[in-house]
């Protein structure tokens, strides 16, 4: 895809200041600006298990720590584990002298052949579930700690408020005697109630036994100097960290891992809070409910063929412009100014967008992200075609039409090199600057955009300016 759109060669200047290919850019139809992953607000839309493709509500995900109850990953290599069934002979419950066949299940990795039997986990009698969860050995202690510090902090909060309260009273009413008592009391207990010094008021806070230090610690195992190391029995860092709470050091202590779930994200414009992208709910669907990709709204620029650039020599670089919208478009190429897109905003703000911006974004306080500094320095001079041209609307049926049906546009041959359906070719004359190694030119793409969300009272077409950078190619020194 990226290759198809020559993403690395032709990049648009996003409103946040980053250069991105058209495939990585969104077009907010409400702000009439380009947005990219750097400057939109990302949100968790839906949670799902990538293996069983079940949706998981966020409350459930929170309880299950973002892991699927039914699917497991191999603790050794990370591949998905599959359930294996086999039958074993067990004593019959009625007559212990006889044996009966029973079906049992265990988990096995088809990639590295690890099984739950390797680590001595008992086979299960049911096909799904049944695996005992591991416990945190320090659970009790940690729980009492948590309660303790919570009550300590709670006290601190109350004391603070008491203090503030009494302060206010004394300053407003100067009733020093009557109110100074709780005030000083509050102050005194404050330090001891800070979460770290629980010496003072422990009586009020919940039970907690601090751990004690010891003079001796566990040393090296006796046999470390003589025992062979079997590398395959010691876990790697990855294997340890895939269960952070336990971090098993030996492969014999590995335990099946519940599969981690994934999210579908939706994207929102930070300025108007409209969705720019929203996926369909169904985990197996790869479609979107809303997808305001720039390639549906912004004329697409491509280089027609690779040109060899010579230092100081003028070369002809042909670009194609393509109209993705179902409306005719007037297009012009103007000299490069990075701030070009800002000018549009002001213009748009004056005449049309003002009303709508009041109703939507007027109430929202936008948190601006820091401006991005991008190298926008062209390494070649460019002569742009002068004048306007009209890009025909996109017509999905045109492909199947044999006739040359396109209405004749009065094209200026100085501007339009060729025309085919909704595409037009234009020629740029590029002269690399001396000493530049790579040819890069810029221009501003000005086009009339037909706004489909605008209400009747507003003008339907707006003129937009988009700064474009073209990486023409390497320059050979002559």
């Amino acid at each position, binding site marked *: 895809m990226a290759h198809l759109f020559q993403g690395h060669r032709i990049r648009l200047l996003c409103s946040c200041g980053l250069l991105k290919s058209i495939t990585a850019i969104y077009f907010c139809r409400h702000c009439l600006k380009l947005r990219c992953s750097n400057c939109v607000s*990302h949100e968790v839309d839906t949670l799902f298990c990538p293996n069983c493709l079940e949706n998981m509500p966020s409350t459930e995900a929170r309880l299950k720590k973002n892991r699927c109850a039914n699917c497991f990953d191999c603790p050794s290599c990370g591949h998905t584990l599959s359930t294996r069934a086999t039958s074993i002979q067990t004593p019959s419950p009625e007559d212990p002298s006889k044996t009966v066949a029973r079906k049992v299940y265990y988990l096995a990795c088809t990639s590295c052949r690890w099984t739950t039997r390797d680590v001595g986990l008992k086979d299960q009698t049911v096909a799904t579930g049944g695996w005992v969860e591991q416990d945190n050995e320090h659970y009790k202690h940690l729980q009492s700690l948590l309660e303790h510090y919570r009550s300590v902090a709670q006290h601190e*909060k109350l004391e603070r408020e008491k203090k503030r309260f009494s302060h206010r009273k004394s300053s407003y009413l100067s009733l020093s005697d009557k109110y100074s008592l709780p005030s000083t009391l509050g102050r005194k207990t404050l330090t001891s109630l800070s979460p770290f010094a629980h010496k003072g008021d422990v009586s009020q806070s919940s039970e907690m036994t601090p751990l004690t230090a010891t003079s001796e610690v566990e040393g090296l195992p006796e046999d470390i100097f003589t025992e062979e190391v079997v590398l395959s029995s010691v876990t790697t860092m990855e294997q340890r960290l895939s269960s952070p709470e336990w971090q098993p050091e030996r492969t014999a202590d590995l335990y099946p891992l519940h599969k981690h779930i994934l999210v579908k994200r939706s994207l929102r414009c930070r300025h108007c809070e409209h969705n720019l992208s929203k996926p369909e709910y169904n985990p197996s669907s790869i479609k979107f409910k809303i997808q305001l990709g720039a390639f549906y709204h912004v004329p697409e620029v491509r280089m027609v063929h690779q040109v060899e650039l010579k230092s100081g020599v003028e070369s002809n670089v042909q670009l194609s412009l393509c109209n993705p919208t179902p409306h005719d478009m007037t297009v012009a190429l103007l000299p490069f100014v990075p701030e070009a897109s800002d000018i549009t905003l002001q213009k748009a703000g004056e005449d049309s967008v003002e009303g709508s911006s009041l109703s939507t974004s007027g109430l929202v306080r936008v948190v601006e992200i820091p401006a991005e500094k991008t190298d926008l320095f062209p390494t070649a001079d460019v002569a742009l075609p002068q004048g306007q041209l009209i890009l025909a609307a996109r017509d999905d049926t045109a492909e199947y039409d044999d006739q040359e049906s396109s209405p004749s546009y009065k094209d200026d041959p100085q501007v339009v090199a060729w025309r085919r359906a909704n595409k037009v070719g234009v020629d740029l004359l590029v002269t690399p600057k001396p000493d530049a190694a790579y040819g890069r030119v810029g221009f501003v793409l000005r086009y009339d955009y037909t706004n489909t969300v605008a209400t009747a009272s507003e003008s339907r077409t707006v003129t937009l300016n988009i700064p474009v950078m073209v990486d023409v190619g390497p320059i050979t020194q002559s």
Partner: protein
Amino acid sequence: MPLYEGLGGIGLINEKNTTVVLDIGSAYTKAGFAGEYGPRVITRSEVKCRETGQTVPVFQYKDQDELRHHLVDFIHKLYFRCLLVNPKDRRVVVVENLLCPSLIRNVLSKVLFRHYEVLSVLFVPSHLVALMTLGISTGLVLDLGHQEATLMPIYEGVVVFHAWQALPLGGRVIESSLSDLLLDRAVAVTQDGSEHRLSTLMKDMPDKCLEDIKVRTCFVTTLERSSRLQSNKYDRSVEPPPPPTSVSYPLEGRHILTVPGTVRELAAESLFERDQDGLTLATMILDALLKCPLDTRPKLAENLVILGGTASMKGMKHRILAEVRAAAASEHYRHNLPIASFKLHHPPAKDNYVSWLGGAILGATEAVMLRSLPRDQYLVNDVVPDWCNLSFNTCEERDEKCA
């Protein structure tokens, strides 16, 4: 006091928007939720470089903008790959090393508040909150991370800041001395079955590989064996202890590297060898004690806490304790620092997430409401005042009391 039961107070424990707790280390990042007993994820602190597409450490940057981009991408990954919650309008607790450059803290705040619009940020000092996991308020906390070892004494809940110590003695030093030792001594068998010195096959070893060899085969030897090995270096008549067994290690799927037993034993010795200034992990602890008020020293020495990933290395804590005792008995410290007993704590967590756990405990209390820096306040002029750091918080209260 029903009057003060504000919105925040009621549902903290069952709050839907649980506070996120981040500990972004130089090598590994621990991320999870307040009130939980372990991080949801411990992942390498690495991102894809926006320009080259290569995986680089988050804290390897040319300028502030590059650091910001790294943090934006990395935090995106943490929220949308690991934690799976919206960052917007949710509180964050950041466990930070007090010795961490303020540039990093400022950029991190910018990213959290501006790019991710979090509700509030609370910076908690890693050494201080580590004590919360033990339920104590006094301790000498030594963090053995990847880049460096940092030490901070804490007395009655107050950081004794001027006694801090830091040396570049961390996991990375072990790895580089492991690399030197291997290139010097090790041989490898290539695919055609012939044996070569490792140094003829490669100029330097990949970092991932070194870490793997370190974690899976190396250990910290005993003080007694170490001194015998040392003496042997200078006086060949002293018999060295018999070396541990060697290990065959498949290297990049092509060679079989033999890791000699001596290398397994010696790699971590660099942490205990005196540098030009005569500083080691042991002297860090003793020097810090010397900088603390006299009456606090015995209690601090009986409350040592050693944490950080490198502390997990087999034999590490045992050796540090032995080294500290030996150094304390030496000419240099015996008179200035007469301390009878050193004791070590055992936190209820794996060494590499002790500080995170402290942050998670603190993050589940009202302290988050009382002490965090709220977004609105940050956005006024984009500065992180020092009070949003817990250590300054507690100091301030002390002053208030004194006044």
